[in-house]
């Protein structure tokens, strides 16, 4: 049975606003170069390329085409693109290696969220007949979700603040993070409510960023790194788009993906939760035990580059295997309003 492993991960600095283009080229050129340096590979070693990005972040069609300039894609490359977070590009690349057609793949995601007004742009993910014309913004929808959980007793603002405090404090040790602050939950709860029931710390920052993950068939991976992060489970699911028709305090797609991916016994999880309460939903649906270390990178609350943020969670988790600090890890990515679509990857050291 073929298996596939992560052998490298790099990311651009996560920042509120870059001066670069919406094509991501300025973020990708150094991030790709670093990934090649890290793995000792060169572009000609890559069998398949796959990326994730969104035209609507840039305000025009085909930004992903301009991004391939960063690769130096001539002679031509075997390449594909998803209009999704690049975590799903990684899934496509994983499948490609499983077919036996290629041994290696490089996956990247990028997004310059600062180019437009994110609260308006993301409204266009909603049903275009009866919801999007009202322009509901992502923060307001998340606020409704948070209140549902608070009022039903599933979580509290204290629990939400504890998620944020842990994330921001952990991020203080992550040089790539955008928000970095050693802070306690009590201190956070003294800060004002900005979008009732949410405080600023409950909401991921707006981030420009890019990240790169390199995959290889496990036999090949061992030649590249001493301790490849072997993917032992990789699953994703989507839920109904009907916000008023599904239970927003639950995430059936996360639960189903997690079960299928086989996350029992993980020591560490990187969860893609752009809102503090969403981490609580995810941890519950994934059945993470109390001792599981969540988001040592600081997670999405510390930096949330759209269209690469999910890939970054996988990269961060994989590096904990590669650097020897963990034996089995789980990574999660989300897409769509209120955790509509979710992906889970489980990785292990050998």
């Amino acid at each position: 049975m073929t298996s596939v492993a992560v052998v490298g991960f790099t990311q651009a600095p996560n920042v509120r606003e870059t001066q670069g283009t919406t094509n991501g080229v300025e973020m990708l050129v150094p991030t790709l170069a670093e990934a090649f340096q890290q793995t000792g590979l060169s572009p000609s070693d890559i069998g398949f390329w796959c990326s994730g990005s969104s035209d609507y972040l840039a305000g025009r069609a085909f930004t992903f085409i301009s991004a391939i300039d960063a690769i130096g894609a001539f002679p031509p490359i075997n390449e594909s693109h998803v209009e999704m977070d690049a975590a799903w590009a990684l899934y496509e690349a994983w499948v490609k290696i499983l077919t036996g057609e290629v041994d290696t793949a490089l996956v990247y995601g990028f997004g310059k969220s600062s180019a437009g007004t994110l609260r308006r742009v993301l409204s266009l993910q909603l049903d275009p007949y009866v919801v999007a014309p009202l322009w509901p913004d992502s923060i307001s929808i998340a606020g409704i979700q948070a209140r549902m959980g608070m009022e039903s007793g599933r979580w509290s603002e204290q629990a939400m603040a504890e998620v944020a405090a842990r994330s921001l404090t952990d991020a203080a040790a992550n040089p790539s993070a955008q928000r970095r602050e050693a802070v306690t939950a009590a201190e956070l709860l003294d800060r004002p409510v900005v979008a009732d029931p949410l405080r600023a710390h409950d909401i991921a920052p707006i981030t420009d960023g890019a990240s790169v993950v390199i995959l290889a068939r496990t036999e090949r991976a061992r030649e590249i790194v001493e301790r490849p992060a072997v993917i032992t489970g990789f699953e994703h699911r989507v839920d109904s788009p009907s916000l008023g028709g599904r239970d927003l305090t639950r995430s059936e797609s996360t639960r189903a993906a997690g079960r299928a991916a086989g996350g029992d016994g993980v020591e560490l999880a990187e969860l893609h939760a752009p809102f503090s309460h969403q981490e609580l939903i995810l941890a519950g649906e994934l059945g993470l035990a109390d001792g599981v270390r969540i988001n040592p990178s600081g997670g999405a609350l510390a930096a949330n580059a759209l269209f690469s943020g999910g890939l970054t969670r996988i990269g961060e988790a994989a590096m904990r295997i590669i650097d020897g600090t963990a034996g089995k890890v789980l990574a999660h990515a989300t897409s769509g309003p209120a955790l509509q679509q979710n992906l889970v990857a489980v990785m292990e050291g050998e």
Partner: protein
Amino acid sequence: MIAEETPLSAPLDIGFDYTRSLGGVFSHFMTELANRRITGVRGSDGTVHVPPVEYDPNTAEALSEFVEVADVGTVRAWSWCAQPVERQPIQRPFAWALITLDGADTAMLHAVNVTSPEAMRTGMRVRARWADEPIGHITDIAYFDPVDDAERVGDAPTPARPPAAREDAGGAVDTVITPIHLSYTHSVSPEESRYLRALAEGRMLAQRCPACEKVYIPPRGACPTCGVPTTTEVELPDTGIVTTFCIVNVPFLGQRITPPYVAAYILLDGADIPFLHLVLGCEADEVRMGMRVRAVWKPREEWETSLQNVDHFEPTGEPDAPYDSYAHHL
């Protein structure tokens, strides 16, 4: 060494009034809205979905059994929108809420007209406030008001109505129009910014790729074949050749040049890549592949950071370049 300068940026506004044909379920829903009635659809398991869904979330079955529901309902959960954005239903701070209308099993996302979060609560009873002139659009429900007189506040400021929907021959709304206008800040790369600033001074500034040594105009944040930024600056003349071209005879939405015009790939002398520009100064049918051309600049006072400083290219009258000299640029 090239000094660091802030890359150029400028607003990019995109907008279109999208026309959305509705199909049976949404057509029924919108037609009823135009008559100030709200209808849902019954799902495979009996669930009454409001707003309606065309396909059952559990079975994917096409749904078609309509159910009229009340325009009064109960808030299931809410959040406070302290800073409304353009086109949201209320143009001052307001509440978003999931509202289950009486007779419905699912909740509708909409706005509630209260003036502070203290005035909102889950379980609040609310009633649809209809737009003055319903047209068959979800915004016919302008927002929801508290049912309790004591909790109700004055009229809320609302955004502009969308253009009227279209009706079919039978008087049913079959299409809604939804304007989507977004504003972005568009930036160009540091390399292209240097080229654009040079254009503002009437100069054609290219850069050479340090790896393949090809001369790019405009310069690139990444040489497309090498993946590294172009670096060494090369000043080019404003003369060159037409490699290939077409004559644009067709008008289209958003067009900025009146047809007919010749859109041509111009390869400047010393460049390794052509760019698109206009050729004037001769009849369109006299433009040829290989024709020698020179830039005709606009008056200096109109120059900005744009290739539009060159009004067009015109023939120089020199002999055409031989085909073999530019065949590899096609």
